[in-house]
Structure formats: C-alpha cells, structure tokens
C-alpha cells in the first residue's frame, strides 16, 4: 500500500465524491475537485516524466499554468490529447494518462544515458552535434531525435471532438479573477459597463484562495465567492472559468480558449470540447497575477523540488502534502506562509532563509511557533535521483560569494521561493514597453500601447490593500469613460501581514570540486553552465542566447526561467538586467490545441461548397465531381465500369459527333448597367467595344496593368445600356473587384454599375453538330437558323413557360449555344434539354471532356492564362486594339514583350502517337543535353484528341511562332519520361473555325 499524502480534512475538494483514474496503467483514487497532479501527489507519485534533453526524472514543480515538468498524454473520450499539464487537468472518473518523453518507461528510461553523456549535449547541441556528416541527418540523427524528443505524440486519426469559435464585444475584458480582477470587474460592472471576467482555473479567486487575509469581515476566499456571486447575477457581466486569454492582438482583439468539456469524461452532444473566443474589448484589464521564481542550486530539478507557492496550494486547495519532511528554501517572506501551513497540519518544516535574521510579522509568528529557521543558509544541492532524499545545505557568506561547511539533512521535498515575477505576457504582446523594477527584480508594464491596464501583482503590487484600492478605482475610471456613470465603491478594510524586503540572491554558488547541474529552464534542460558556454562562444544578444541555448523556448514559454536566465546573463556580462532586456513574448501564453484554432472549419466546412441547381440531377446520373474553385462540378458521368479516361473520351466524342450538354452555371457572371458601359468595357478589354450592336456577344480579353492576361470571356449587349459579362469560374471574384476598383477609384466619372449575377443564372452549354436541332425543339417559336441566330448572336426566348437567354457562343469549337434561365428553373431546363435531346443522342459531359474539346481546338484557358502570359503568348494578339487605349496596354510595348523570339502557345503531338505527355513537362531540344537542360517552355495542358485518336498537348515555348514542324522532346523528370514530339499548330482541330459558324 503506497503512502498516503492526503490530509484527513481541509482543501476545497469534494471528499464525498471519490474518483478513480489511471496513470501509466496503474489505478489510483482521487476526489472531485482534484487536478491530476494533486491526485497523483496524494498517492505518493512524484515521478511523472523525463526531461527533454537529458531524460532526467521529472516530478511536479508548480500547481498551475507555469508547470514545466508534469506534461502528460491523455486519453479522453477515445481521443488522444498530448501536451496536457497535469497541474491544470481536472480529475474525472475514468481519466487515463501516461508519461511522455520516456522509453521504454518512466522508471527505466534509455534516454537517461544522455545525462551521463552530458558533455555531448552542451548549449547549441542541435547545431553542433548533428552537423556532420550531412547524409546522416535523415537516416540516423533525425529519427533518433524524433523518437527521443517531444512531449507526447499527436494522434493521426481524425479528431471526432467538436470545437467552436465565438465572437464577442465588451467594454472591459478582465484577465484573471484574483483580487485585482474581482475588484476592477465589480467596479466596472457597477458602472453599467459590459464586462467579461476570464479565469484560467476552475476556481475563481486567484491568490485569495490560498492567502491568509481578511477583507471587510470575511476571509479572502469568502470575499471572492461573494464577489463572483454578485458578478454572476449582473446581466452586463460574463464570468468564465477554465478560460485562458492567451493572445493580445491588434486593435484590442484578444483571443481566449475556453476548456468547455476537458474536465468531463465525455463531451455532451451539443457542447464543444473547447471554444475559442475572439473578443474585441474597449478596455483590457490585465490581472494575471504573478508566478513564483525558482532559486537555482545543484540538482534543483530533482522530483520533490517545487515552488513553495505550489506546495501551499496543494495543501490549501487540495488537502495534499507534497512531503512530510519539507525544507523551505526562500529569499523572502512568502516561503513562511508555506511553512506555517505545514506546521498547521502537524508537519515540521525547516526554513532556510538566505537573508540574515530579520523580524517581519510572519517571521515572528514562525519563530513563536518554534519553526526551525536557519538564516543565511542555502540549499547547495538536492540529493536523490527519482525523488529528493536529502539536501546538502550550508551557511552562506554575507557577500553571498562563498559557502561554508556542507551539512546533509534528510528531507522529502524542497519548496523554493525566489520572490515573484509579474505575469506581463499579455501586456508585452499588446506592445507595452515594459520596464525593469529594481525593487522587485522583475519587469512590469510601463507605457501602454493599446487600451490595456495592468493591475495587482501583475503590475508588481504585492500588497492586497494597495491592489484592491487601485483596482476598484481603475475599474471605476475605465468604465466611466465608456458609460459616463460614476458609482463610487467603498474599499473594504484589509488585514494582511506586512512583509520585509526580499533578498536579491537567486543562484547558489557551486561548492569546490562539484559541478552539479543547476537548471534555469526546467522544460528545455538549460542549465547555468549552458548559458556560460553560450556567452563564452560569443553570443551576446539575449535573443541569440535564447535561441542558441533554447532557454525559455519550451511550451511553458519560460514562465519560471526567463528572469533567472536574464539575471545570469547580466551577472556574467556585468550589465544591469534592463540593459540585457527581455526576449519578446508572443502569443499564445499557453499551448492552444489545433482543434480549437481550426474550430468548425474542418473538411468540407473549411470553405463554402457551391453547387449548381442541377447538382442533384448530376448526382443521380453517376457524376463524379471535382472541386473547381469553391464549386463542385461534374468531372465525368460514369457509365458501367468506365474510368475517367474512357468516360471523358466518350463524352467528348459524342459532342463532336452528335450533341452534348454541359453545366456551365459556375461561370462568373457580372451584370453591367449604365450609359457609360460601352466606354468602360472599351477600357477594360483589349479589343474594341464601342460598336457592339444590341443582341450580340463578343469575346474579350482583359489585362492587368502589367500587361499580363487577367481573364477572358464573352460579354453580350442585352440592351442599349445593359451588358452581361461572363468570366472564368476561377477569376469571377477578382474580376468583379477589378471592375469596382476602376469604377470607384480611377474613373469615377463613368456612370456604370456592376454587380455579380453568377448565382442568379443557371447555365447549360449545348454543343455539337446536332445542337441546333435540340435548340429548335426547345424554342419552337424562335428562328434559330444560322441567319436567325448567327455565331455570337443573342436571343431571349420562352422555354416551356420559363424565360431564357440564348447565347450562340462556343468553348468546344463546335456549333454551340449557352442557355441561361433563372437559377430556380435550372433543373427544369436541364431535364427538358435531356428529354428533347434524347432523339439526337444527347449526353451530358463533364469538365474533363470540356477540357479535351477546348485543348484540341487550341482555345486557351486557365492553364495558359496562368498569370505569366501576355496576349501574344496565347495567340490572342489579334484581339489587341492598336487604335484605343485600355488597361495594361502601355506595358505591352515593354522590350521583353516584343522580343521576336517571344514564347507562344503551340500544339505538341508525340511522334509515336501513343504516349500521353504529362502536364508540366519541359520542352527541350536535346534529350541528352547536360543538366540543367535548357528549357524552351512547358506543356500547359494535355488531352487525348478524340478527333484524331492520339495524344495532343498545348505548350508555351520560346519562339513558338517559328517552331511548327520541329522535332523536339518532352521531358518529365517527375514521371521519369522522355518523349520525342513534334510541334504543330495549337489549332489542331478545325483550324479555320468553320464549325462554330456552321
């Protein structure tokens, strides 16, 4: 039976509710209200992991967010959760956790050999050790480091848990519910301000839960409960526990992570696991408190060495003893609070105080209780491997440079207190130029950049009376600015013990002949000697020292190590700490799970999915879909056992021979209206637009100002001042912004309005030699003959009671029409087309056949208009007006754009007429030339020509104009292919364009 460290009574846990849990496969019991850490300590478990670099045994160091050691891997609700701090994880029935960073197990860990190979792991060891030989990196070093390093392993399964995001606005966001947070929140709320009070822990009250103070006639804890009760009852206040404000971003935007269900065994159906709050606050109160600083001595990372405040918290909140023979090692009065708490529970502590005999209120009390106090004493080194067994202690000289004779005393824990470090992370993130306060040896916020105010111990104020006074008045002042109300609050009387000054001493010198490791950064295993080495090697800037030694770079962001690191650098360099300066704090203050960051934007929810009105018809008819931007489009319609290649070939062939129908709803559509529309189009497109008659469509190309083709499409003049523009699916949004830019900023004098109408219209392209027959039957009253509706003509018609727009335009190169109806009628139109087209062997075709048809016709599309090509490159120079000016025209006379051997689109056919050319292949002259083989250009699009029944590709190659007939090579290093090819015209099929006009 393991020893029990739980007190018989006391603490804030619910002793009526026993909870069972497993750690490293072994079953233990705790109580409701425990953390995993407090429950393990109560069970006498002090070994929870191995350190990062040397694999030294790791126990518990803190009792909350600052914990550098006790990081575990959890299984909850059948999901794996790595990087969980045991000091923050609340216990629930059935919790399962295990140690990380140890192999094969925490008691016997192979990596611990690193501890004895310490000289191979000095500062910058990653940079030094694994530099040579280079070939070893991937095969030897990296896999070993991967296995040996890291805090847990992420699951590779899909995370079934739900996460969500919430946006909130408030007048005051208050980060922390200790005395300063409660007082400022209450004052602001009384003034009618909208307040959000966020507390990281499950319990509100911060330091009030563990301090021996009275406020008014209540204990600190009772007072905090009363304040929370009041705040919760106010409609203008949101009070949140288990919520960490981890990032302070621009314009007073803060982000908070709420652990909604992590403390429960499972997540309820309509509740997320975690919720990320984006909070835009008018004013921010940083009441995040302070974290106790460690003292540095030999083997100060041994399990059992922990912060004195943590020991007190385990006692007062959880009723748990961290040891039964404690040493309190302190340089200030805080350590005595822990000593008194032990004494109160019939445990005899020994206090080692680095100061000379002093007599503050609390020291007097300790003396009266006959607590063993040794002044001018230090712990030289902790003894014991997996747990502290004793301590080497010694008297230290007045100048703190030397130690006297070493004595060994038995102990089972060493509680250290090196004074307090204000938690200034959020203030620093907001841009506050912090300053060094010599009185407390720490940085505190100074000039605010955003609307942030830091209060209480986060601001270096360590007396409760002063904290409450300033916090009530700040809460009043900040809220008054917003609500104009002025509700004065009487500050209650406070009884607290007056402290004496702390000792600036923080690092115990090494005894003669010993080279104990004295750790600064407990999570990344950075010791005093590592910093010494980095400085000897010439690193000076604290930012460089940090990166070279990894000091403060672990997941705890150096919450317990930063200041001691700075102290050391300043001591060695003989500088003052403010001259050394601290490293930049960046969000997040605590690790945030990826799930919470992603929220609900997972899988298909990561962007909207747009479906055409005919989508369900496609689905029912075996369409295989493809993502086209945000749209889902049919790629092909599968018949029997067909694959993509067979199906698209069949569909394309049917268009060439009979008639096909393609859903073109996704094409961007922009409605253009106004008396200056023609003039505007004339400036936007490269060709002439002033004389387009009503009822006619025209193909146009638009450029960016740098002469690169931006988009192409047809625009139809519907009436005198009304045009219907189409864009490519991909560029629809950009083209609209582009048009708006010129109308609003460059030519505001033009009277034109543009609006997207993409979603208002459903479109079907009917293409093939028999398309006119289908159209005639769809619109029996219209004259759709070649004269009645010529190529590039436009008509309006009535499709069985539905208004339709008919455009005679073609992307396939065949006789073709596009019919648009209002979206709601899309499916009706489609079914009518299929029904009527049946006798003409109509078949639907998808994007793959569509590509085939346009490629063999030499119609350029996105793969050629790739943001790198000008009209000439795409053989579109015939559409560039010489007479008028337009967007981008001036760029076309650039020297590079008019070189005689400028690149141009060509057709490419393999000599064997069999081998398909992979898209992206290089076109080269000599397949065997020395690398890098001079590249003439690249293959932009490939298809199987259904007209000629052989592969055909488009390529953009240098001097393309004069390359027709040349025998070259297509090289695909990716697919390891070299294909002899012939360059042909890009217009492989119907080069004269007779079919579209037939």
């Amino acid at each position, binding site marked *: 039976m393991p020893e029990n460290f739980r007190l018989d009574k006391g603490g804030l846990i619910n002793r009526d509710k026993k909870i069972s849990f497993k750690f490293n496969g072994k079953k233990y019991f705790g109580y409701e209200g425990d953390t995993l850490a407090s429950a393990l300590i109560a069970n006498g478990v002090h070994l929870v992991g191995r350190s990062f670099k040397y694999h030294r045994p790791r126990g518990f160091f803190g009792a909350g967010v600052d914990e550098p050691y006790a990081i575990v891997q959890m299984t909850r609700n059948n999901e794996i959760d790595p990087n969980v701090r045991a000091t923050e994880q609340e216990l629930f029935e059935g919790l399962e956790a295990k140690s990380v960073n140890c192999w094969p197990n925490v008691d016997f860990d192979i990596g611990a050999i690193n501890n004895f190979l310490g000289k191979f792991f000095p500062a910058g060891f990653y940079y030094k050790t694994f530099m040579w030989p280079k070939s070893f990196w991937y095969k030897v070093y990296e896999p070993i480091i991967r296995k040996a390093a890291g805090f847990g392993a992420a699951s590779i399964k899909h995370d079934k848990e739900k996460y969500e995001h919430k946006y909130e606005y408030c007048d005051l966001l208050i980060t922390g519910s200790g005395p300063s947070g409660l007082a400022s929140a209450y004052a602001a709320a009384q003034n009618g301000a909208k307040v959000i009070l966020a507390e990281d822990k499950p319990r509100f009250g911060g330091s009030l839960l563990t301090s021996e103070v009275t406020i008014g006639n209540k204990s600190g804890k009772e007072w905090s409960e009363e304040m929370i009760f009041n705040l919760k009852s106010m409609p203008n206040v949101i009070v949140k526990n288990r919520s960490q404000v981890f990032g302070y*971003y*621009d*314009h*007073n*935007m803060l982000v908070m992570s709420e652990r909604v269900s992590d403390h429960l065994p499972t997540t309820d159906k309509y509740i997320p696991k975690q919720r990320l709050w*984006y909070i*835009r606050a008018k004013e921010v109160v940083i009441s995040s408190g302070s974290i106790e600083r460690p003292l540095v001595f030999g083997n100060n990372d041994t399990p059992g060495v922990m912060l004195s405040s943590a020991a007190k918290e385990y006692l007062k909140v959880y009723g748990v003893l961290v040891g039964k023979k404690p040493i309190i090692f302190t340089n200030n009065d805080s350590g005595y609070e822990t000593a008194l708490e032990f004494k109160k529970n019939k445990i005899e502590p020994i206090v080692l105080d680095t100061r000379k005999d002093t007599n503050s209120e609390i020291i007097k009390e300790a003396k009266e209780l006959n607590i063993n106090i040794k002044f001018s004493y230090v712990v030289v080194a902790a003894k014991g491997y997996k747990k502290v067994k004793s301590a080497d202690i010694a008297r230290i000289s007045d100048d703190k440079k030397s130690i006297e004779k070493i004595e060994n005393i038995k102990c089972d824990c060493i509680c250290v207190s090196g004074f307090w470090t204000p938690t200034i992370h959020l203030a620093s993130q907001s*841009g506050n130029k912090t300053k060094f306060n010599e009185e407390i040896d720490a940085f505190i916020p100074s000039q605010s*950049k955003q609307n942030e105010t830091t209060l209480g111990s986060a601001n270096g104020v360590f007396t409760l009376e002063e904290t409450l006074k300033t916090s009530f008045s700040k809460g009043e002042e900040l809220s008054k600015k917003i609500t104009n109300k002025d509700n004065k609050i009487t500050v209650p009387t406070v009884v607290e013990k007056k402290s004496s000054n702390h000792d600036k001493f923080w690092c115990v010198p090494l005894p003669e002949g010993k080279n104990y490791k004295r750790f600064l950064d407990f999570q990344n295993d950075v010791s005093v000697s590592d910093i010494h080495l980095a400085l000897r090697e010439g690193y000076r800037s604290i930012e460089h020292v940090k990166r070279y030694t990894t000091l403060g770079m672990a997941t705890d962001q150096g919450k317990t190590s930063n200041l001691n690191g700075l102290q050391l650098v300043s001591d060695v360099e003989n500088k003052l700490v403010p001259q050394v300066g601290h490293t930049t704090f960046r969000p997040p203050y605590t690790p945030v799970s990826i799930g919470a960051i992603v929220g609900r934007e997972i899988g298909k929810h990561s962007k909207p999915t747009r479906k055409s009105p005919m989508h369900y018809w496609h689905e029912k008819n075996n369409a295989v879909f493809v993502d086209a931007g945000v749209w889902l489009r049919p790629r092909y319609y599968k018949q029997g056992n067909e694959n993509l290649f067979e199906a698209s070939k069949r569909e394309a062939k049917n268009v060439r021979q009979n008639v096909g129908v393609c859903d073109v709803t996704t094409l961007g559509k922009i409605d253009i209206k106004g008396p200056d529309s023609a003039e505007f189009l004339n*400036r936007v497109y490269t060709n002439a637009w002033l004389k387009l008659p009503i009822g006619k469509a025209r193909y146009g190309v638009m450029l960016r*100002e*740098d002469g690169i083709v931006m988009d192409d499409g047809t625009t139809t003049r519907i009436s005198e001042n009304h045009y219907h523009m189409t864009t490519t699916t991909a560029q629809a*949004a950009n083209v609209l*912004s582009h048009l*708006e*830019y010129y109308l*609003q*900023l*460059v030519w*505001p004098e033009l009277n034109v309005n543009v609006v997207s109408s993409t979603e208002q219209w459903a479109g079907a392209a009917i293409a093939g030699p028999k398309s006119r027959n289908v159209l005639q039957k769809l619109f029996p009253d219209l004259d759709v003959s070649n004269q009645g509706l010529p190529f590039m003509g436009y008509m309006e018609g009535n499709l069985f009671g539905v208004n339709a727009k008919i455009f005679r335009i073609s992307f396939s190169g065949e006789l073709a029409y596009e019919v648009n109806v209002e979206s709601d009628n899309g499916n009706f139109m489609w079914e009518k087309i299929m029904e009527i087209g049946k006798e003409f062997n109509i078949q639907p075709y998808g994007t793959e056949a569509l590509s085939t048809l346009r490629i063999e016709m030499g119609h350029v599309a996105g793969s050629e208009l790739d943001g790198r090509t000008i009209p000439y490159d795409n053989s579109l120079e015939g559409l560039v007006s010489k007479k*008028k*000016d337009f967007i981008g025209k*001036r*760029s076309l006379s*650039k020297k590079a754009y008019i070189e005689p051997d400028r690149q141009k689109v060509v057709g490419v056919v393999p000599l064997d007429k069999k081998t398909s050319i992979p898209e992206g292949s290089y076109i080269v002259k000599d397949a065997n030339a020395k690398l890098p083989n001079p590249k003439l250009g690249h293959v932009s699009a490939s298809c199987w020509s259904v007209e000629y029944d052989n592969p055909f590709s488009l390529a953009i190659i240098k001097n393309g104009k004069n390359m027709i007939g040349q025998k070259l090579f297509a090289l695909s290093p990716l697919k390891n292919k070299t294909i002899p090819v012939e360059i042909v015209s890009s217009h492989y099929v119907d080069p004269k364009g007779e079919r579209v006009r037939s």
Partner: protein
Amino acid sequence: MLHIKCPYCGLRSQNEFSYGGDATVKRPELNKEVSDQDWDNFVYLRKSPKGKHLELWQHISGCRQWIKVERDTLTHEIFKTLKATEEV
C-alpha cells in the same frame, strides 16, 4: 486583427476587407504619352514605409466599396478612413 471603420458601414473586423495597396498611386491618364520610367513607377514601384501609409482596402464582405485607410505600418494604428473619392 485590425478594426477598420468603413466610411459607409462603420467599424468592422479586418476579415471583411481585402487589402489593395498604396492609395497615393495615380494611374496615368488614358491616351496620354507615358515614359517607360513613369509607367514602370506606376506599375511596379511602391514605397514600403515604416510608419504612416495611405492605403486602399475593399470592403468585400460588406458594401464592396474601395476605401482609403491611413495606417501606421509599424503599430497598426489607424488614423483615419476615407471614401475613395476623398483626399486626406
């Protein structure tokens, strides 16, 4: 995340806007002679100031207006926002 005051819609979060570059650049007039140098300056050359910068944003998920924003590129402070046709 910036908080941008659209002159038409009021204070909105940055994710409703898209960035449009330097607002002081003037497009050369149509049908006018422009030297190579002037054209290159217009198309390519942009200052990248540390400090005050007058820039364009489009309220794409709102009123779709292009607006001018005077912003400090270092501190992200926004001094003022203007309609497209307004001058500082």
